[in-house]
């Protein structure tokens, strides 16, 4: 019988039955226990209790027995008891009060500790002193210390006085505010301006694929109007020559993806010695032979700056595409010597 009951109850039901039994034995203990439980779990227990209605002595024995087997190692005897609806009502009659006790102040505004000091100070600057005092009250000691150290003495004095005299009338209201403020702060923390990293990266990607003369015209204009944005864009911009810093393995992936020997031959017409060596070092003998043949057939008339530039843009475009597919490491970062050794693969 006990075995059957054991399997038919879920963890919430068992917890609720145990709590009801304890409440019958020691009135008032439920609120104490719930104050140690996470608010959402406490709420779930409360809802389960509300739906239990009547618990028979067999179920009660089974739950206590299981609790005993699992958690209590010493010998003790519990008497059986039918849990009536009156008992449920007695223990859980004031829903709001119980939820307030269950939720208490544990965990309230706990997400504030994850925001930077500056973000919090910025928010406090636009808030009333009373609200600031409430929120400071719920910060952990380290965060409170960090924030207070960045405030002037006069403000600290006023806030400390308010914190010491806080008389919060409604935890329910504060919990409602807890959820709303979380939304508001996270919305504020989301980057939305043109200077955000995401936006800069997007623009850098566009400029990489732009013919250099056109790019320079745009840059000249940006230099006059938004010089700080231009500096950020240039930091993110990947040029053909930057690819020389890639690991050999990543570089070979790009060469393999391009495969077009004509493009490689054209690129070699106008690039640094370092890049020439990098390309040649990452070609297989067969590919090298094909390239040599290609180089011999290129006439000087064919080598137009526009075509060379397009060939270089194709390298960058291919590199970015592989980066997006996570087939090569993030562009713009020089790999360490160790990484380079590790990443040395077979030639293309």
């Amino acid at each position: 019988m006990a075995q059957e009951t054991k399997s038919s109850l879920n963890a919430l039901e068992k917890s609720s039955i145990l709590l009801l039994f304890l409440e019958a034995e020691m009135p008032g203990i439920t609120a104490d226990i719930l104050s140690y439980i996470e608010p959402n779990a406490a709420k779930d227990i409360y809802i389960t209790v509300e739906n239990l209605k009547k618990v028979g002595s067999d179920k009660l024995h089974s739950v206590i027995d299981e609790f005993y087997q699992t958690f209590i190692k010493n010998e003790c005897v519990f008497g059986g008891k039918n849990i009536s609806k009156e008992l449920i009502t007695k223990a859980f009659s004031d829903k709001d009060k119980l939820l307030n006790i269950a939720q208490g102040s544990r965990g309230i505004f706990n997400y504030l500790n994850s925001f930077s000091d500056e973000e919090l100070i910025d928010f406090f600057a636009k808030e009333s002193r009373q609200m600031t005092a409430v929120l400071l009250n719920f910060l952990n000691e380290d965060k409170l210390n960090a924030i207070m150290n960045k405030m002037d003495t006069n403000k600290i004095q006023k806030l400390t006085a308010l914190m010491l005299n806080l008389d919060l009338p409604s935890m329910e209201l504060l919990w409602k505010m807890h959820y709303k403020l979380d939304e508001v702060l996270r919305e504020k923390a989301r980057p939305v301006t043109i200077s955000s990293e995401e936006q800069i990266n997007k623009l850098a990607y566009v400029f990489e694929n732009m013919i250099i003369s056109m790019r320079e015209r745009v840059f000249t204009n940006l230099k006059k109007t938004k010089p700080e944005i231009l500096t950020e864009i240039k930091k993110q911009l990947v040029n053909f020559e930057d690819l020389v810093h890639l690991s050999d393995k990543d570089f070979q992936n790009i060469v393999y993806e391009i495969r077009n020997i004509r493009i490689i031959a054209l690129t070699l017409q106008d690039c640094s010695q370092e890049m020439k060596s990098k390309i040649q070092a990452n070609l297989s003998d067969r590919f090298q032979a094909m390239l040599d043949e290609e180089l011999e057939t290129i006439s000087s008339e064919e080598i137009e700056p526009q075509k060379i530039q397009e060939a270089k843009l194709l390298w960058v475009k291919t590199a970015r595409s592989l980066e997006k597919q996570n087939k090569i490491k993030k562009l713009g970062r020089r790999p360490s010597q160790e990484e380079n050794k590790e990443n040395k693969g077979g030639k293309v």
Partner: protein
Amino acid sequence: MRPEFNEQHKKMCLEVSDELSALTHLNVNIGNIHLELTDYHTFFQRVPEFSYIGLIESKAKKAKFILIFDAALIYKASNILLGGPGIIEERDDSYFTFSEDFIAKEIIEKFLGFYNENEYDAEFVRSEQEIELLHSFYDEQEVCQVVMDCEVKGEKMGKIVICYPQEIYK
């Protein structure tokens, strides 16, 4: 004006006071109702330059109406609900903070609860801090102005004013 309109507002004061008292665990009392028919232009002139103004839409009555709270009421109520003595903090500019906006919306929620129990099918549309940013009535349009006083723990907090169009009060 509908004969039961005044009675309905007395009931609203009672219910909203009770709801707010239960939420805040404080003695909130809204009362001393005064109803008056006027044109919107006159009503507009009476509204303070800076208040907390909520625009509400009754889908059942196919009309919008305005709920206005004295700025002082929102400041004091927020201070009390955040554990303070109910003072108005000195401020360089006139604005409502996140917490004050939150408290104001909580109060509006209680009013909406009453309207919806009485089949208004009411929804909060938006809030403003200046009446001139709302364009829901013509200047010459007749409106019903309802003025109520709000007290917390026996202390006067400020006025709550509602402006209804004919679709609602006739």
